[in-house]
Every structure is written in C-alpha cells, then in structure tokens.
C-alpha cells in the first residue's frame, strides 16, 4: 500500500512527462549500446601493444598471382595457450594503385564454420584489373632484424609485408620509401577465432531485454591503421558530425565514443555525434598538405567501431615521438574477416577513382531525379495529390516528382493501395505523367504477417524470411505491426523480389512510378537497438551480426534491379534508400534520414552529404526543411537555397508538421523558394554533366573544397562551404537573420558572385553582406558552365530548350568546361548515345570540341538544341560583335541580364543568339 501511494503520483507525473515532453528530448540514448556496453569494442579499445599477442608472418609465397603468408603468434607458447590456429593472409595488387589484403582462418584446419565474406560488393570488373604477382623481393627494413616481403604496386608504389612484427603497408618510392597507409604499425592486431561451445561456456550477451546467443563465441577483429603524411581523415559515413573527423581518443582529446558503423533507425538524431546512423561505409580517406590523399577500405558488414586517435597518441600510453603529420586510427569489428583495401592516391580524386574501381561507379541517374522532389508524410489521397500538383503550376514552380509515404498502402502492405484514398492510382499517375512528372511510392522491407497478403504467404511458403536464432521465421514489429523480413542476402530472393515490381505484379503501378526504400537498416521497433537481433539467421547459416550493415544495401540492390527488369533493361531505375553500405552508389540515391527543422541540422547536412560523396555515394541529400518540427519561414527558405545544391534535392516533412509546400509562407517567401528551385533547374545541365563525371570517375558531384584545392590548408576542415563540380563554390547560411558572413575563396584565381557577377579575389577570406535573396555562391574563374535559363513545369519539358554558357575568365582570359547530354532515362548512353563537349575559351575564341570517343558505339543522341546565350564574365574588351565559324555569321555582343528570370539582375557581357548547335564543332571569335 505504501508503495502504491508513492508511485501513483509518480505515475501521473511520468504520464504527464510522456504526454508533453516526449517530443522535446527524444533521442533515446540509453536504448543504444555504447562502446563500453559492447564487449568486443570495450576489449579492443582497452588493448595496448603490450597486452596484445604479437604476430609474425611466415611461409611467404606467391600463389595464383597473390602473395600468401601465414600469421602465427610470435611465441609458440602463447599459441598453444590461446589455442589459436595460424591465420591465412593474402595480398593482391590491382591497377591504379589498389592493394587488397585478406586475413581469415585457415579453412583446412576445420574451423566451426566459415566466416562471412561480404558478397556482391566488389564489382566483377575489379577482378580483371588484378596484376598477377610474379615475384616477391625480400628486403630488410631499417632497424629490423628479419626481412620483409616487397611487391610492386605501380611505378611510384610498393606494397610491403613486414614479417616481424607483422605489418602491412604501402610505400611511396618517389618519396624516400615513406609509408603511405599502414596496418598494424602499432601491433594492435587481434583476431578472435570461432569456437565450438563447450560445457560451461557462457558467451551469451544481454542488452536491455534482448539476448544474443552468440553460438560461436567472441569473433571480433581489430587493428590499427595509420595514414602517413596526413593532416585529417574523412569518410566512414554515416554520422551527423563534422567533415574532418574529430579525434575520439588520445592526448588532449576529450574522449568520446568511437565512430560507430552500425545501421540504425535513430529517432530524432542529434546533430553532432559519432553515433551510428542509417548507413555504413567502412572507407576512410586521408588528406594532408604534404602528401595528398590516401584511402583505406575494410569490406566488412558487421558492427564496426572506429577510433580516430588524436595527434601524439601512441599504442602503449603516452606521448608519441612520431612525426606529427599522420593520423592513427583503430578499427574494430564484431565479426567477419579482414578484407582490406589500400588506396595510394595521391590526389583526393585519385582515391575516389581507386575506391570506386573496387565498389563500383555511381549509377547514371534518371535526369528527372536530379531535379526537385516534393514529398510529405503523407499526401493523403488522389485529391490531395492533384491539388499539390496543380498548385505548383499555379505558382509557376517547377517540380519533377511527387512522393507517397506509407499511408498510401492498404494497411502498410507494400505494393497495395488504400482503395478509399487511392481508388485510381494509374489514372492519378497518368495525370501527373502528362505534365512530364513522376511519382514515387514507398516499399519497405518489413512484410506484414497477414495470411491474406499474398506476398507474405508466398514468402512464408518459400522460406524466404530471415530466421530467428531458433530457425523460425523472425517476427518483428514495424509499421504494419507484426512483420517478417526477406532474406536479401540471397540472390534468388532478390530476384524474386525484383519481379514484384513488374507492372503485372505491382497492380496500380505505371512506367512513371519509381520506388523509395525506407526502414531498411532494417528498422525493427521491438528489436535490440531498434533493429534485428544479431543472432538471427540468413541463408547459409550466416548470422545477422555478420551481414547487418549490408542488409539495406542488398534490399536496395534487389529493388533497383527489379526496376531494371520492369523496364526491360531499357529504363534506368530510381530508388531512394535510407540504409547504405559500400557499393550503394551503384543502386540509387540516399538521403540522410529523419533530420529536424533546426538550423543545426541544416548546418550538419553539408558535412553529412559531403562525407557520403567521399564514400562514393554521390547522389545524396538531406530532407529540405527538416523532417521533424516546423521550420520558421526563414529557415525553410535558407534550406531551399542550400538544398537546391544538394545532389539529391527533396523536401520532406513528418505528418505532425504543418503543411509547408513552397507557396504557404506568403508572397515573398514563395518568390524566394521559387527562385531557389529555379537556380537548380537552370543548373540541371551542369549537374547532369557532373553526375556523368561521377559515373565515370567516382568523383562526387558535391565536393569538399580541398578536393579541388588539395594544397590549401585553410580548406581542410571547412565544411560550411562546398564545391559543386570544379566550378561553383556554395556557402550556406546557417543562422537566423544573418546580416553578413565570411567566405574563404581558395586558389589564386578570382571568383565571380554567381548572382551579380561581381569579382572577388581568390586566396582570401571575404566578409560579405548577406541578403535574403540567396546564399553566397561563386563561380571560379577559368571555368565554363552550362545553364538552361528557361524553366518549365518539370525537367522533362526542358529537353529541347536552348542553353546558356557562362564563361568565367581567369587572369589569362581563358576558361574551360564540359557538357554531357543524353536521353536522360535509358541505357543507350552505354552504347555511345550521348553528347560530350568540351568548351575552351582562350585567345578571344570559344571552341567546342567533341569529347565522345569516335569509336563509342554506333548510337548517337540526336538533338538540335542550340546555345542561345553566352555570358562572358571578366572579359577585358568592350567588343560589340563576334564571329561564328564555320557558318561565318556575325552575332551581337551586348550587356544583358545575368539571370533573365530575376528582376533587376545586373547586366553582363552577353553574346546574343549565337544559336550554334551543341552537337556541332564550332568556334566563336570575339571581334
């Protein structure tokens, strides 16, 4: 009774708290494990060089073009003590400076089961770039007693396997054989081998109310990786944190959690934390003023924790005597094998190229998907859809895609429609498509356990679901309630899933409908850390812990391949996914999940999207406006102004928020938002060209400044500004009522304000007045970009519209730029059906050159599109005419508005109506 009296008021208080404050402090920190609560992480993090078992490499040979070795404990005694078997190491070398090292248990010694190697991430073409090693050189390194094995990587680089102590590194021959990237330089390597459970072995783990059977005992792997000649490291998305990764440990560093890579559905994530979010790409990139860039990728899909160690850290304890310009890192994974890739760089773009040669180039997106997307949870019914669509027309705001969230389905059964709200989905899509627009519906991986749902019935009968640790279909909880999850690790199941997207199977779908994969971490509301238990089982006895971070990737892959099948292999897929892994760039776009309508979230979206780009995932963006909460109009406008530069540009909102379509905030704000969207539409040709660049080189559309200015130290940790391609520098405005801002403009050449054409000196920080009209954007002198200054209802109608060339001349009155065009939707570009031009301005002459290889297939992309306007920024002369050759036509040069769609746009030097075709070779001479 006493208890009751005391708890009752407390209960009321609790209830009150729950009702009214639940929304305020919502990140459920305690629901997620810390490193300390994660045994493998805790063990690995507390290990020092003296407490770990030193390994040596023995039996070094060449076999099948690889360098093979055994790793054994240095003293036999320890080996027997620990009852460990030798490990097998294999090192192979690939073109363009890639070294791959795998370390696994020796299968000939019959381990309890084979450890999981992540399939279908490394692209098949990569194998063909392998250099067959013929011989290995023995060399004793300075200060060593025993020899090391050295193999050739490329003209400038060697790969070295140091035998005792065991270490692998790549060295730069041209730079006095200094190390570039090394593994186990600090001797922290540790590999827990699988065990058979014996009597009295209690390996089970508990976290909150969840239990993990861990049938094979601890099986983690950890090691240190050092980036030499580096000032900062970057990458390993996805975290809401700075671009240059802050140290998590080390002298003078406030110790934090390591960067966690574990795909999680985090409700209301906070804007500055090493906490793991929806996706994981275990790829890290370093950059330094002296040496440039290098990279390291660990292909492993288990939970990973990565420490970035503060300068001066050493593996034993105190202050290091080692040179300062290096970054040490500690990599820890719960399971899997070592499958590590070293990338030698030396430029940041080289590293991206090397990394994407392994995991694949970013897919060429549908042109429409690079335009503006309008989303909300939820556009309720067909009438709502029609209304929103017509409002865009009423306000003359272009948009390309209208999205439907989970409520469009019949009881959260994907591939179905709520027949009250959406009685005629096909007609609805046709109406939207008649304006050249597209729709996207959501399809999530949780399948409602409802026997009247054919998909569930079929999946059950075929045994296609992930199993729980007892071998029954895993039953978790998500939107539909009780749900099961397809085992996307299996190619057979992926193919079956892909077939569900055919027009016959997905009733109510039309060719203008594309797909959104949400919740594919997977999100399981009643699972440990809101995801699937680690001891759940996939095909081949693979434990979920081993495959977790790639689950969403396989789901994304299956959906994307399904859409390719749907379109008979002729239509590029568009699939947005929330979860991601290495290789995701091949399958579609990524957004940064459930952010919040706060300035800090606007701010952190830039490093988040930049980091995704550094990890190869070029096509990404954050929800414009912020998913949770109601943005003030000013924040919303600023978000549009910034978001218009995200590679993936979509507005989205939670269903509890007020409507926030662009026209709902008064005339002025509508105008500002319209202008922001127009800028994106004007830049679509430039963006599409950049997407093609990403597609062929792996270099992202949105880039950190240092990718374009690798030797400018001032840019290394700048994540407020970013580059779009090599030409535009964008500086976000992240504060309310900002009156001015500071922008650092790198390089020796000057920059042109992209709104006014005003010139700013490079290599300096400028204090600028900020207006509500736009965020600061600058065009780099020496570059040429292509715009389309007419906008339409959607990008589809812009196909035949003429181009504007903007030429920003540098100090030697020269500039260069490219334009890529294809049909925007098919795969014909693979057969050469595209236009790729290079524009070069020098000596008072603009020349258009064909960049498409003459032999690139027989297909051509036929267009008659012309260039209607050429804007010259920074041209010295006051010429009145120009001569077009070969047609020998004289055209006028005059002062005309920089932006015809803006009121009071400053007048700039403009070649009027040259009307040359983009397909042709021509020159235009300023007279």
């Amino acid at each position, binding site marked *: 009774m006493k208890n009751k009296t005391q708890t009752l008021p407390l209960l009321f208080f609790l*209830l009150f*708290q729950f009702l009214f404050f639940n929304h305020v402090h919502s990140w459920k920190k305690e*629901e997620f494990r810390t490193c300390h609560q994660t045994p493998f992480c805790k063990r690995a993090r507390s290990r020092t060089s003296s407490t770990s078992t030193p390994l040596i490499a023995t039996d070094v040979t060449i076999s099948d073009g690889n360098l093979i070795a055994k790793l054994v404990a240095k003293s036999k005694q320890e080996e027997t003590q620990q009852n460990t078997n030798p490990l097998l190491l294999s090192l192979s070398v690939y073109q363009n400076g890639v070294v791959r090292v795998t370390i696994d248990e020796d299968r000939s010694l019959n381990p309890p089961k084979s450890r999981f190697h992540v399939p279908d991430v490394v692209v098949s073409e990569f194998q063909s770039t392998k250099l067959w090693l013929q011989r290995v050189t023995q060399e004793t390194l300075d200060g060593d007693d025993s020899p090391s094995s050295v193999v050739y990587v490329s003209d400038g680089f060697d790969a070295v396997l140091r035998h005792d102590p065991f270490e692998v590194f790549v060295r730069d021959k041209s730079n006095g054989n200094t190390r570039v990237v090394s593994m186990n330089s600090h001797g922290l390597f540790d590999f827990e081998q699988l065990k058979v459970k014996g009597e009295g072995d209690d390996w089970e783990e508990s976290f909150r109310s969840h239990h993990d059977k861990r049938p094979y005992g601890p099986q983690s792997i950890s090691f240190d990786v050092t980036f030499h000649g580096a000032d900062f490291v970057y990458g390993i998305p996805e975290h809401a944190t700075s671009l240059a990764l802050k140290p998590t440990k080390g002298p003078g560093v406030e110790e934090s959690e390591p960067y966690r890579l574990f795909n999680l559905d985090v409700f209301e994530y906070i804007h500055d934390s090493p906490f793991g979010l929806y996706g994981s790409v275990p790829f890290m990139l370093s950059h330094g003023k002296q040496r440039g860039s290098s990279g390291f990728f660990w292909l492993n899909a288990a939970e990973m924790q990565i420490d970035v160690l503060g300068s001066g850290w050493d593996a034993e304890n105190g202050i290091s005597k080692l040179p300062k310009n290096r970054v040490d890192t500690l990599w820890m994974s719960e399971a899997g094998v070592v499958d590590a890739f070293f990338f030698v760089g030396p430029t940041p773009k080289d590293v991206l190229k090397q990394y994407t040669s392994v995991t694949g180039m970013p897919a060429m997106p549908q042109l429409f998907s690079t335009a503006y997307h309008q989303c909300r949870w939820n556009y309720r019914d067909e009438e709502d859809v029609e209304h929103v669509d017509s409002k865009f027309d009423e306000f003359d705001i272009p948009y390309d895609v209208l999205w439907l969230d989970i409520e469009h389905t019949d009881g959260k059964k994907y591939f179905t429609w709520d027949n009250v709200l959406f009685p005629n989905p096909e007609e609805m899509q046709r109406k939207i498509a008649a304006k050249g627009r597209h729709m996207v519906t959501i399809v999530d991986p949780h399948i409602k356990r409802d026997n009247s749902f054919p998909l569930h019935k079929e999946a059950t009968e075929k045994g296609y679901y992930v199993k729980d640790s007892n071998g029954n279909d895993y039953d978790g*909880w998500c939107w539909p309630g009780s749900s099961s999850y397809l085992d996307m690790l299996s190619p057979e199941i992926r193919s079956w899933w892909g077939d569900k997207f055919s027009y016959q199977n997905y009733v109510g779908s039309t060719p203008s409908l594309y797909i959104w994969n949400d919740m594919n971490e997977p999100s399981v*509301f009643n699972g440990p850390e809101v995801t699937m238990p680690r001891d759940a089982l996939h095909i081949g006895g693979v434990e979920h812990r081993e495959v977790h971070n790639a689950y969403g990737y396989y789901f994304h892959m299956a959906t994307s391949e399904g859409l390719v099948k749907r379109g008979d292999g002729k239509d590029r897929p568009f699939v947005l996914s929330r979860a991601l892994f290495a290789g995701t760039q091949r399958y579609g776009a990524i957004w940064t999940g459930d952010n919040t309508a706060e300035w800090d979230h606007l701010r952190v979206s830039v490093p988040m999207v930049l980091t995704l780009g550094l990890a190869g995932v070029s096509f990404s963006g954050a929800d414009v406006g912020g998913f949770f909460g109601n943005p003030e109009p000013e924040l919303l406008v600023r978000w549009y102004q910034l978001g218009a530069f995200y590679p993936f540009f979509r507005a989205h909102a939670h269903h509890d928020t007020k409507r926030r379509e662009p026209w709902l905030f008064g005339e002025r704000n509508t105008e500002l938002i319209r202008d922001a969207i127009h800028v994106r539409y004007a830049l679509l040709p430039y963006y599409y060209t950049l997407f093609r660049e990403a597609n062929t080189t792996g270099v992202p559309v949105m880039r950190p400044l240092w990718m374009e200015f690798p030797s400018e130290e001032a840019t290394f940790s700048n994540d407020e500004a970013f580059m779009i391609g090599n030409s535009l520098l964008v500086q976000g405005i992240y504060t309310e009522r900002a009156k001015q801002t500071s922008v650092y403009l790198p390089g020796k050449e000057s920059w042109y304000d992209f709104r006014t054409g005003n010139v700013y000196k490079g290599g300096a920080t400028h204090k600028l007045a900020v207006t509500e009209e736009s965020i600061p954007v600058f065009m780099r002198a020496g570059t040429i970009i292509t715009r389309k200054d007419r906008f339409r209802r959607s990008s589809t109608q812009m196909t*035949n519209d003429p181009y504007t060339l903007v030429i920003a001349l540098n100090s030697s009155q020269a500039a260069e730029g490219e334009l890529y065009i294809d049909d925007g939707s098919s795969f014909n570009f693979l057969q050469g059906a595209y236009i790729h031009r290079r524009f070069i301005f020098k000596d008072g002459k603009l020349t258009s050159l064909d960049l498409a290889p003459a032999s690139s297939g027989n297909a051509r992309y036929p267009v008659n599109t012309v260039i209607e306007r050429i804007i010259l920024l920074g041209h010295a002369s006051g010429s009145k005419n120009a001569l077009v050759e070969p047609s020998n036509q004289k055209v006028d040069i005059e002062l*005309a508005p920089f932006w015809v769609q803006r009121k009071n746009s400053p007048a700039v030097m403009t070649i009027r109506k040259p009307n040359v075709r983009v397909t042709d070779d021509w020159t235009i001479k300023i007279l």
Partner: protein
Amino acid sequence: MMKLRMGTGVVVISTALLFLCLPFCSSSVPNDPFFGIAPQDEKYYKSSDVIRCNDGSGKFTRAQLNDDFCDCPDGTDEPGTSACPGGKFYCHNAGHVPTSLFSSRVNDGICDCCDGTDEYDGKVTCPNTCWEAGKVARDKLKKKIATYQDGVKLRKEEIEKAKSALDKDKVELLKLKKEESTLKEIVQQLKEHKEEIEKEEEKERLRKEKEEKEKKEAEEKANEEKSAATGEEAGHTNEAGKHSDAKDYAADETKYEQSDVGDSYDGATDSPSSEGSPLNEVEESVKGAEGEHAAKSETDLRVEEKKSSEEIINTGNDASENTEGLSKEELGQLVASRWTGQKGGKQSGEAEDAKKTEEQEDLTSESNNEEYEGYASETDDDRNRYDGEDETEDDFREDERDDVSSSYKPDADFEGEPDLSDVVTTDSPSWLTKIQRTVRKLFKAVNFFETPLNQTDAARVRKEYDELSSKLSKLQSRVSSLTQKLKHDFGPEGEFYSFYDRCFESKQNKYTYKVCPYDQASQEEGYSTTRLGRWDKFEDSYKVMAFSNGDRCWNGPDRSMKVRMRCGLKNEITDVDEPSRCEYVALLSTPALCKEEKLKELQHKLDSLNSQQPEKHDEL
C-alpha cells in the same frame, strides 16, 4: 474571326518553317511578331519601333520582339515565346475565355490554351477545344448565375431581417438596461430594509438569548435539586457527537493497519463504504497521498519532487525505459509511436485494423492472438489515460468557457426560467411598475419601528428581496449577454447575423463536424467530442470563418479550423478536410456570400463569352 484565323495560320506556318530551317533554328519563332500579346496591349507594341520593357529595365527594337531571345527580364519583348521566364502568353481562346499563361508553357509539348496556340513548334498538335470547353464553362457559369440570382435575394432578405433584429436587440438592450437600473434601485432599497429588519432581529435575538439564559440559570438552579432524569435528554446531542468521533477514530485505525498510510485524509467520510473495495482503496490512497502532499511543508515538497524526477531518470525517461516489462509487441508499438506520435491514434487504428483482419483470419497461433490482445488493450488503456487527461483539461476549459460564455449562451438559461420569461415577455412597464407598486405597498405596510418585528412582514421583505435580486441577476446576465452578442462582427451588412446561435453540421464517414459560428467548431464521433476551435474571427474579407485554440493535438498544435464560405442557397457544410494535421478546413455554402457585385461580374463574364460564341460557332 480574324484572330482565330491568325492563330491557326501561325501553327501551320511555323510548323512548315520548322521543317524548312531545321539545321539552323531548333527553337522556333512565331511568324506573327505580335503573337501572344493581349488585344489591349497591342497598341503599346505597335506605337513605336523601339519599345520599352514594362519594368523600365531597358528597351528593344521591333525586330527583337518575339525573336526568341529574352531582352527584358519581365518578358515584355517575348510575349509569344518561352524565352523570358517572367513573361506571359495570351491565348485568345475564341469561344471560351481568353487566358494568360506563364511563358514557361509556350512550346513545352503540353496543350494549355483550348485554341492550341501555345504549341506552335510542331512537336505536338493541339486540337481547338474552345467551343466544347466554352460550352461547358458557359453552362456552369449559367448555373452559377442562377444560384447567385436566388442567393442575392436571400441575402437581401437576410440583411433586412438582420437589420430589424439588430435594431430590436439594441432597443431591447436599452430597455433592459433601464429596467436593470430601476430594479437595482428597488433591490437596493429592499436590501436596506432587509438589513434593517435583520438588525432588529439580531437585537431581538440577543435580548431573547439573554432572557433564555437568565431563565435557564434559574431553571438549572432549580434542577440541581431534582434528579438527572431530564438532564440526559439535554446532553443527547453531545453524546452523539462523541460517538461518531469514536467511530471515525476506529475507521482511521483500520486504515492505519491496512494501508500504512501516514495520515488518512478525509477518511471519515469514505471509510465505511470503502472498506473491502479495492477500487476505492486506490482512490483513497491517491487522496491520501494528495493529502500528504498538501500537508507537507514546502521544503519537503521540493525534496519529493526532486526525488520523483530522479526516479524518472532511473526508471526511464519515459515509458520506453520500462521495456523490460513490455512484451515484444508492446515494445514495437511503443517505438513506432515515436514516429507516428500517436499513442492511440492512427497507429492503433492501424492495429485495430490488423486485429480485425486477424479476427477474420482466425489466426492459428492462440498465444500470438493473446499477446496481440494484450497489446491492444494496453493501447486502449493508454488512450483512456490520455483521454482522461484530456477530459480534465476539458472540464477545466468547460468551466472557463462557461464563465466567459455566460455572455454567449445565457439566453437559454435565462429564458428557461419560467419567472424570467415572465419578466421578459410581460410588457416591461407593467411588470416593473407592478413590482414597484408591490414593494412600495410592502414598505408602507411594514412598520419598521414596531418591536418586536412583525414576523410576516419580515418574511415578506425577505422573500421579495430574494425574488427580486434573483430577477436582477438574471436581468443583468441577459444584459451582459446581449451586450456581448452585439459586440460581435456580423459582417459589413450584418449578413451573418443569422449565424448567431446556430450550428451547421456535416457527417463525413464516422465523424460529424459541427460548426457553430461565434462559438466553436467540433468533431463528434459517437459520444466523444473534440473541439476543433473556438470562434476567432472572419478572415479574407469575410470569406473565411476562423476557429482557433481548439483541443490540443498529441505532439502537435492546438486544433484549428477555417471555414471557407461560398455562395449557395442553403447554409450547408459541404466538405471537411484536414490538409495539415489538426488544421481543418471546411466549406460552407451560404446565401450570405451571394453578393450582388459578384453576380454582376459573372453576368458580365457570360455576356462576353456569349458575344464570342456565335462567331466561333459559325466558323466551325
């Protein structure tokens, strides 16, 4: 006729042109330099060879007009092409209404003008549908005009009615106010008299008491000598008191034993019935606890609060913490609710749906079902708790509203009272004078200086005072309600007067929406009512009624509703929608919006349509 021919011509010629000049011009230029210009603007373009941009930003030559290159950012030089994003394209649409398009629609492959003139580059062929579209539009317009014609009449009647009603209200208010002051005076007089009487009575009482006392003392003296036979009787009341005290004490003791509650607050009233009933025990202990709280000193209280908040941290920031105790389903549901933000709302609706299907399916797994039920009832519980919370709030608001709203609705109470209706309906001079007369008579009849006071006279004064002061207060509330009513905005012509004290209802699926102008808007489902908003004001020049500060939404704002009005012959809610969560929009047809100017405008529109129609028809 000319216009149309010209339009068709352009299509043909420019199509031909396109084929002729393919190598050099892929963006097409209209043949007619004045293409896309509204008739009223043609003069502007034809007046000189150098034309100024409308916004004054520059000028252009006749040759640059419609040359498919934008010279004026406002689009002045490109009315017939898509070259200027800021431009407008005029379609004549003979047979229908001329329209002005954004230049982004010109040659974009989509037919926008019914005459098809916006697409002339030959990529699509747009049929001329103006006649058909025009006919549909005209018929629609005619219907609308018919509605307006009747509606305008109704509106006039309403306005007339409102005028006289308002006048009547004003007159009544004036009269009531006068009566109020008269009555107030009378009541005041009565009060004074009454007090006088009471003073006298008090004197009388004291005197009597004194007498009593003396008498009693005398009697007691006498009694001392007698036996205590009668004394027992005198002490009876006291005894009884003691007895009940003892009982209370006993009850308290039981409670001490039972519940170990430190101090059983107001146990006396509860204890006899509450014993043995667990429900009551809970209630009791809550009360007990409250009592405890109340009894504690402020410092204690603070400690307590701190302690409980600590406990919250320990036991979990919120319910999510208590996951150990939750079933898997409950946990899933709980986590889901963070995103949906609806404890018992949509998601549980979903779950209920799921339940239904499950029931239909007769799911095999019994235990599964059980768990499911468990979850569902848990949600229900939650919802109840939530509702409970809500109700408390509601009650509070209800009270609050009643206070304020004595101004709004008191008429009902007021008129409900039979004697008041007398007051109101009886022609006032007579009833007031009657009262005055009665009171005067009363005053005359009563002799205040007579001692002891005549009991009947005193009673009469008292009765009269009671009656009249209650009448006064009713009168006052009537005055205040009428004053409040007249403070309302009934529109520029009083056209919304009839909305006062009325409600409009619409049933949509399971909900009934009720819009009561000047009061509130609500949504009813079965017996539960959600307030969507209290009357706020008219907006958008009397086209919208705004209701705000409705019941708070879970995780969201206070509910609100906007009722958009349009001309119709009946007052009728036709559509209710919730475009943003908890922001409702309804459509109300009402004669109040059938304005004469608008009718004229519509008629004018029809006339101009008709004037183009025969011409066009002939041509076809």
